[in-house]
């Protein structure tokens, strides 16, 4: 199982396989990161971005809302929640970072991101301390 962020998830769902991402294991998105995408789908907001997102077909929106199981999984947050709370207490940050760290710890001690913007100070410090490898494919 390879834990990825929402950027890589959207690219994978759209068939634009990120160069360098291993393709021999199932991919999984932490639930809080899926929530982040769902907020954009259901409340796209104003401006050009919302207008573009509104052009996605119902089937396309379903690809984000209910990812195809052979393409992308969403991690069950329940087995990760206690670990996430412990990590948030230790390193700071909210559920987004803590759940991602817990997922990376459990699933191969690795996390894959599609943008450096998703790798902040809390996550970097905690990942180093926990021995979790952080890969960024921009």
């Amino acid at each position, binding site marked *: 199982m390879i834990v990825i962020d929402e950027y890589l998830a959207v690219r994978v769902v759209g068939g634009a396989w990120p160069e360098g991402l291993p393709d021999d294991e199932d991919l999984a998105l932490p639930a809080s990161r899926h929530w982040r995408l769902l907020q954009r789908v259901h409340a796209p907001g104003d401006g050009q971005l919302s207008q573009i997102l509104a052009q996605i077909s119902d089937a396309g929106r379903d690809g984000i809302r209910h990812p195809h199981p052979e393409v992308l999984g969403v991690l069950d947050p329940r087995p990760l929640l206690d670990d996430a709370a412990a990590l948030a207490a230790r390193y700071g940050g909210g559920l987004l970072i803590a759940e991602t760290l817990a997922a990376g710890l459990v699933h191969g001690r690795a996390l894959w991101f599609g943008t450096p913007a998703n790798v*902040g100070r809390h996550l970097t410090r905690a990942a180093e301390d926990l021995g979790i490898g952080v890969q960024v494919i921009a």
Partner: protein
Amino acid sequence: MEAMSIGEELLDQRRRRRRAGDPRLSDADREILRRITSGDLAPAFQAALDADVAADPVLGGHDHDD
């Protein structure tokens, strides 16, 4: 050429389906997803995601800096 075992063949088929993306999406859908992740709309998409985290103390944490 050595033939693949049935297990290798099934895994290879699975790998190719994974790399192809969600079969329900149209080419137009795929182009929109490309634009928001690696095209002209990527900065706006990132800003929208960041705004959601900043507005939600549970998701982002009270001392969120990411």
